[in-house]
């Protein structure tokens, strides 16, 4: 039976219409037409602007309030398609594939000039992007120089959201079993060495799924994939005249649209196809047991401060969407010019709608929130004890099984690692884990007690949440790669064109004896060992490990610790390294497999340092050069720990016991091993001090130690043993 609301009630010029539905916001195909719905608290004038795809001038402008006629009559009457503060109408007979749309908004306030402060920034000469646009045209092919004179550069497109997921659903892998691989969609496969058909795209990433499977990760975290403008802040390097881009994309143009330039199908300018390509990627990753997490940027937008471009939010309802000072300047807690007004109830609703959309329509498994501390600030910027947005996300029914991860600090000085308002649900990027591990690996003293906490999942920070609240990482996109961390003392960001002033100065890195590239075999050997030491410790820590794309093959950025602007061979993953450094890849792969095989690393709750299973060993015990005698002194550069197999998963699992010893001293030491129960012997899984052919074993093939009571642990080495 046909719906009775598929018939027009209003006519404007040649367009047939009827009042729309406020929900859902955005442009939604309905039988016979498209429902357009947009919120503005302060606009009293709103016009739908329709373009034929790519054309500079609109082919229609249809008011949401104005004079209409009834079908078949010529008599004008006043019509008002507005409920509350939402303008909504259905326009019939539009070819949804052919059109791009936007809005004009106006109010009685005087226009505020660019560069001047102002609470309201309505300007009816501007066509505005729908904040809920599910596809956005204008940057369809990455790096293709836009026509700067073309009005309305970022254009809403319609998505026909009927993707056939078949039986796919988010994987819901228990958080404690995740191994996260942080990656940049374009950088992962753009390098000519990737050897695939569609470099730099979602489709290209899909071609590399077998590689991810082989490495053994079960979750990829994608750096921003919401539509952004790679030309934002684009400039040429003053000396090299190379074009610098917004390569990372931490600057959102639209929260509901995937980055078209990341889709191999982007050039077709078909929003639905872009969505299909990304959904197909997610579906295939799920088929291969790999979750997809998105790095989302809800703290600010691409509109910048009062000098920035008017794209969407500021022209639709500036005072609602942004945190403003009382005289109309933008608060800048994000360090990028503006701050999204996340704890305004309407904006909170938009954030929630966006996340639900990605979880429900794209089957996304989790989210990592960039500068998440901002999400806990009130509308004047003050941190709140119980931020409603964070609470809403923690308890939302659609997001209930999604992983929620906070980057628990912001550019306004709020640092909440360990104290982020978590509502029992939020995990955090553990910056303290990163700093402690880096300092330990370079050989700093005075750290052994803190190291013990970090290896246990930081119970000092996450007492009530358990180790799964701790996303452990040593490197991420922001900073050195792992190979650079052991090759450079200082950042070398000259290529960024900011006189090396950008990027962090406290890298906690050590160059192993020479700054930068060297052919010195001893230094090179030490660097590889240090990389392995770092990764081995990451893989035996309680909590959720995350590694940076390329670290498994020794990717270098030549000492640059802030690659945000480079779309070139420094930032792209060089797949040749896989052939150059096969031993490194083998080490990483086996360490991941080892972690996944052993439940003693998968504790949901903190360890107790007690034997509550009657096994004769505490769940975790600490050791030094003499077993059972850890050296907690300031000078100590060695620590051993044993995880008891009978206490795996809080005693619910059954596993082998594992012994780990880390020595950051510049000399090797004989280390006494804890005695095992009758019938068990120590086998060596990894020994970074051994020659490369013997520094790691495939899980299950570990050789037994000939001496079960003592082991020589080499200078700056990590040893991992398994009891069998």
């Amino acid at each position, binding site marked *: 039976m046909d719906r009775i609301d598929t018939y027009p009630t209003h006519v404007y010029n040649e367009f047939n219409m009827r009042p729309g539905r406020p929900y859902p916001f955005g442009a939604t195909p309905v039988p016979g037409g498209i429902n357009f719905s947009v919120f503005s608290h302060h606009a009293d004038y709103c016009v739908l602007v329709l373009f034929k795809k790519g054309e500079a001038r609109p082919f229609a402008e249809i008011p949401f309030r104005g004079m209409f006629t009834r079908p078949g009559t010529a008599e004008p009457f006043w019509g008002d398609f507005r409920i509350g503060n939402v303008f909504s109408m259905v326009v019939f007979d539009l070819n949804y*594939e*052919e059109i791009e749309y936007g809005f004009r908004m106006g109010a009685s306030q005087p226009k505020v000039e660019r560069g001047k402060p102002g609470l309201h920034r309505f300007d009816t000469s501007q066509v505005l992007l729908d904040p809920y646009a599910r596809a956005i045209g204008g940057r369809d092919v990455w790096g293709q120089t836009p026509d700067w004179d073309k009005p309305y550069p970022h254009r809403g497109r319609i998505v*026909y959201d009927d993707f*056939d997921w078949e039986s796919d659903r988010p994987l819901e892998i228990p958080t404690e079993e995740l191994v996260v691989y942080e990656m940049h969609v374009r950088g992962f496969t753009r390098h000519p060495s990737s050897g695939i058909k569609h470099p730099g795209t979602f489709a290209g990433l899909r071609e590399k799924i077998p590689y991810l499977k082989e490495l053994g990760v079960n979750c990829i975290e994608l750096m921003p994939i919401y539509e952004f403008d790679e030309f934002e802040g684009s400039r040429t390097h003053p000396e090299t005249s190379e074009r610098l881009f917004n390569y990372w994309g931490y600057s959102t143009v639209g929260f509901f649209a995937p980055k078209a330039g990341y889709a191999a199908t982007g050039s077709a300018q078909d929003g639905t196809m872009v969505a299909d390509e990304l959904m197909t990627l997610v579906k*295939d990753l799920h088929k291969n047991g790999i979750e997809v997490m998105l790095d989302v940027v809800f703290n600010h937008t691409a509109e910048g401060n009062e000098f920035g471009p008017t794209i969407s939010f500021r022209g639709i309802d500036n005072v609602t969407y942004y945190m403003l000072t009382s005289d109309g300047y933008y608060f800048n807690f994000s360090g990028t010019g503006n701050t999204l007004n996340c704890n305004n109830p309407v904006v909170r609703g938009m954030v929630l709608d966006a996340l639900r959309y990605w979880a429900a329509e794209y089957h996304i498994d989790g989210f990592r929130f960039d500068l998440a501390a901002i999400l806990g600030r009130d509308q004047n910027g003050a941190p709140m004890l119980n931020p409603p947005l964070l609470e809403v996300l923690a308890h939302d029914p659609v997001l209930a099984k999604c992983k929620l991860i906070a980057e628990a600090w912001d550019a306004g000085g709020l640092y909440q690692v360990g104290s982020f308002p978590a509502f029992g649900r939020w995990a955090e990027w553990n910056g303290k884990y990163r700093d402690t591990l880096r300092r330990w690996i370079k050989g700093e003293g005075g750290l052994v007690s803190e190291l013990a906490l970090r290896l246990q999942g930081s119970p000092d920070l996450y007492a009530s949440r358990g180790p799964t609240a701790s996303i452990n990482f040593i490197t991420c996109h922001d900073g050195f790669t792992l190979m650079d961390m052991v090759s450079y003392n200082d950042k070398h960001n000259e290529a960024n064109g900011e006189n090396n002033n950008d990027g962090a100065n406290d890298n906690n890195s050590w160059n192993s004896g020479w700054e930068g590239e060297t052919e010195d075999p001893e230094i090179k050997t030490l660097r590889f060992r240090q990389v392995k030491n770092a990764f081995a410790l990451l893989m035996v820590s309680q909590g959720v490990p995350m590694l940076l794309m390329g670290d498994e093959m020794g990717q270098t950025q030549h000492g640059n610790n802030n690659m945000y602007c480079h779309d070139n061979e420094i930032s792209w993953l060089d797949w040749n390294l896989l052939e150059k450094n096969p031993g490194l890849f083998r080490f990483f792969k086996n360490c991941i497999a080892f972690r996944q095989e052993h439940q003693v690393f998968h504790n949901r709750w903190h360890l107790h340092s007690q034997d509550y299973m009657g096994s004769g060993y505490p769940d975790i015990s600490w050791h030094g050069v003499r077993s059972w005698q850890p050296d907690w002194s300031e000078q100590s550069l060695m620590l051993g720990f044993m995880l008891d197999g009978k206490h795996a998963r809080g005693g619910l699992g059954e596993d082998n016991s594992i012994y780990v010893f880390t020595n950051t001293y510049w000399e090797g030491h004989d280390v006494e091993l804890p005695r095992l129960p009758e019938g068990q012997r120590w086998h060596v899984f990894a020994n970074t001090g051994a020659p490369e052919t013997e520094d790691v074993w495939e899980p299950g093939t570990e050789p037994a130690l000939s001496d079960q009571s003592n082991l020589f642990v080499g200078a700056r080495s990590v040893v991992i043993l398994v009891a069998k």
Partner: protein
Amino acid sequence: MIEIDIETIQPGTGSSTTSQGTVVRLKGEIDAVSAAAVQQKILPLSVPGCRMILDMSKVAYMSSAGLRMLLSVYRQISGNKGKVVLVGLSDELKETMSMTGFLGYFTVEDSLELALQVISQ
């Protein structure tokens, strides 16, 4: 840049029933408008156990609506215990179908002869 021609296509011009089943020849571009017309022509042919070859060799372009039309024809026919084979897909179309996940649903053959063999099995 792909220019989209919104001229409505008259599909199925070469449609003929062979002893093995139906061959539907399509020509032109399949977008949101023409996809509906194609579907209207094809669906009546989807009788229980039907065998259908869709000859795509003259299809220069398919939009996301075209891809959807194909999938819904496939669903309809396989739901009727029928069989559908695509033939003559250009490399570009095959690539688009692969990137968007549609290719995996279909049996694709390079020539009509091979397709006839497949559907007569």
